[in-house]
């Protein structure tokens, strides 16, 4: 069940009404926990056991790492919990990748792939649990005594499958403070935001993928150099529409249920440096990597070489987090290298790069990296890159597809401009319109999506579901 399916809209309507109707908070949270189990079990109920295991490890780890216990016990508890959680993640996500590469390196080693099914959203809910245990150990948060509350934090359906990665320090206090239903103002904003996210996903991302990106990446030996460039640019628009669309829907869904999430995308394509890009792109992941990988490694303390190594390791791990494939590792390393260069330049202090030049350089880097991200494997990437060295006939591109790509780019740019403008108003996030304007906006988007037959396109998963 994904946000862009009819099944989800029916499911969510029921969950919304019941959540609002329940009087006592403890029953409300229990109901939301049950609804989250249904949501996840809809995909594959067998993996609910895995979710339960993550909840158990995180919950017990949190209790053992909580304040009031001996320091040694707390440290051991957090180490053990993190190892167990990473072991689960590594087995389900990286075991086959590891064995396949080992078999390539040592053909006679006997390692064989187990064809492990990747449970949807595992990277997200494992990261939730890890950050919770570490936060408890570092006294940022008290251990949660209620199993229901903790289980809801891990499995709350708006963030469970594809983020955003919500910190326990943001989530659990909301449960403890008691349910605060959204006002009519907020509700109108959330409804409009949900529909805008849906628009970005099903109208922009899915159609761009279908019309331009997929055909090129499925035929890497036939696409001309110009076509490869167009497809990579289109993928850059597709992925921001897809993932920020998902984040909009997740934030709105949670908000309608009375739980507030932080922003996950802050106009990333307006960044004038790689560093700024990572402050704006998938904020919940980049801040997670910063807090739980980069800073523990030493962060920006130490010499230049040490800092550069920290950046490279953090970003490479970020790439590996996205998927068990060399293309993701390369993508992360590429970004890490860009950050190292960026930092070296700033430290050298030769001269300030003008913002426009910085933006062009940053976007060129980011979009080049998208080719690594989208390629299925290194072989496909090589075939695509070969287009720049050999003569291939330019394939006819329907005018409609190019016009559509241009239109999508303009819409995403317009959204970025609005988000930047909101930053100057000290209210980053979604545009706060009056209730009638949000209602009209929502009606307009919904009518457009329905009349253009979007629901008939079939449900296409979000790009980040695979992570």
């Amino acid at each position, binding site marked *: 069940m994904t946000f862009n399916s009819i099944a989800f809209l029916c499911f969510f309507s029921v969950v919304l009404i019941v959540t609002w109707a329940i009087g006592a908070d403890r029953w409300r949270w229990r109901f939301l926990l049950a609804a989250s189990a249904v949501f996840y079990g809809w995909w594959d109920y067998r993996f609910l056991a895995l979710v339960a295991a993550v909840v158990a490890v995180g919950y017990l780890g949190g209790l053992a790492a909580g304040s009031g216990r001996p320091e040694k016990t707390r440290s051991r508890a957090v180490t053990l919990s993190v190892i167990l959680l990473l072991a689960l993640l590594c087995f389900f996500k990286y075991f086959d990748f590891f064995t396949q590469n080992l078999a390539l390196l040592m053909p006679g080693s006997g390692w064989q792939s187990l064809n492990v099914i990747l449970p949807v959203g595992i990277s997200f809910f494992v990261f939730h649990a890890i950050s919770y245990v570490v936060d408890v150990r570092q006294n940022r948060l008290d251990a949660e*005594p209620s199993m229901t509350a903790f289980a809801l934090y891990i499995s709350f359906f708006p963030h469970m499958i594809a983020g955003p990665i919500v910190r326990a320090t943001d989530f659990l206090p909301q449960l403890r403070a008691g349910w605060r239903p959204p006002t*009519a103002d907020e*509700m109108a904003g959330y409804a409009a935001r949900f529909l805008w996210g849906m628009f970005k996903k099903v109208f922009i991302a899915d159609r761009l993928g279908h019309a331009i990106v997929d055909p090129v990446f499925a035929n890497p030996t036939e696409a001309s150099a110009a076509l490869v460039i167009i497809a990579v640019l289109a993928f850059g628009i597709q992925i921001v529409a897809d993932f920020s669309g998902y984040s909009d829907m997740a934030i709105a869904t949670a908000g309608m249920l009375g739980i507030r999430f932080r922003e996950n995308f802050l106009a990333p394509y307006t960044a004038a440096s790689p560093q700024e890009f990572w402050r704006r792109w998938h904020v919940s992941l980049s801040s997670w990597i910063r807090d739980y990988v980069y800073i523990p490694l030493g962060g920006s303390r130490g010499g230049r070489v040490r800092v550069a190594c920290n950046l490279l390791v953090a970003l490479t791990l970020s790439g590996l987090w996205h998927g068990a494939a060399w293309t993701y590792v390369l993508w992360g390393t590429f970004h890490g290298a860009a950050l190292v260069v960026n930092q070296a330049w700033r430290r050298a202090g030769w001269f300030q790069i003008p913002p426009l030049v910085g933006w062009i350089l940053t976007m060129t880097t980011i979009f080049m990296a998208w080719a690594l991200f989208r390629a299925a494997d290194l072989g496909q990437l090589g075939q695509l890159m070969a287009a720049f060295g050999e003569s291939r006939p330019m394939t006819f591109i329907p005018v409609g597809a190019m016009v559509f790509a241009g239109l999508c780019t303009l819409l995403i740019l317009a959204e970025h401009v609005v988000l930047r403008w909101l930053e100057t108003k000290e209210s980053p996030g979604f545009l706060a319109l009056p209730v009638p304007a949000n209602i009209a906006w929502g009606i307009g988007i919904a009518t457009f999506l329905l009349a253009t037959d979007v629901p008939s396109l079939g449900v296409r998963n979000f790009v980040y579901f695979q992570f």
Partner: protein
Amino acid sequence: MRQCDNASFAEPQFQPRAMSFAQPSQVDSERRDRWAARWKGLTPLLAILISLIIIDVSFWAIVPDKAPLSLPRYEQMAATAKPDRPWLVLIGSSRGRDAVSEELLAEELERAGLPHQGFNLSIGGGGTPSLLYAALADLTPVLKAMPAGSRVIYLFSYFEMNFLQPGLLGDLPTGRELIVKAGMDPPVTWTSRLATLSGIAAFAEAEGWKAWPAPMGRLLQASSERLLLKRKLAACNDAGQHDYQVLEINDWSMRALARSLGGSLLIAPMPVGPMQQQDDADHGVDVGGSAYLDKFSRDTGVPIVADFPQRVGLPADAFVGNCDHLTRPEDKRMLARAVLELLK
């Protein structure tokens, strides 16, 4: 450090409060107010829902009538054709479309001294062209009203018989009806489910926006062929070779075509190159295909010119492109002349 009061999960405890001293009606009134204030938050969703229902009803006013299936080229032909001269209409797949242009046809007709007006309505991209023609013949009067002496020549490729694309067909205004008529399950979508209940769904169904924008055809075709076939050889012909079968819907459409066009229809297999012939033989496509055409001819009386490829006599190097499309002018001319021979 944040204080953990865990209020939400604490067991309810009895606490004497000021409320105990309030009048019951006052308590009820406060409770009602709180309840109403809470539900007021949902009013924007209700407003959106009600507005959508109203818009949905109003959409019925702009739902276009279901026009008969039409192709722009077909309409153009109907508009430009002269009623006093017989027609020569070529139908079939992209092989025929690319091989014989209407200019070439007109030139050769004039050279042969034939009175016919030449039209080529062949369709590219596979997708069961016979069904489209059957629909045309069934739904519009133009093909039925052809002047005396007219001829429709179906340059037939075996792969067409199971190159069915229900999705493509379902996009056509009457495609779904045809699929149902042929006893098959149409692709079910949100709009097709609700097209009789919802104005927006009916509008979306009639306008068929879901296919917009068109993807890059050749690349997408290559992609789908690869997925479908996992083979390198002449992919578009290949569509029939692994699971060759005469689909019901194709058979239905071929027979509908025969009924509509009567004696003016003639079927001629398109020539293919040696590589494809060998592959056809290896997979029994030629045997299966010609057996089907023989039966079809016996049942309907439509003549089949089975030796048409030999009559054309194209050299082996004429078939170098994908799907055995002809590219050289001299080969195209040979094919056009052979087609005109069929009129005699």
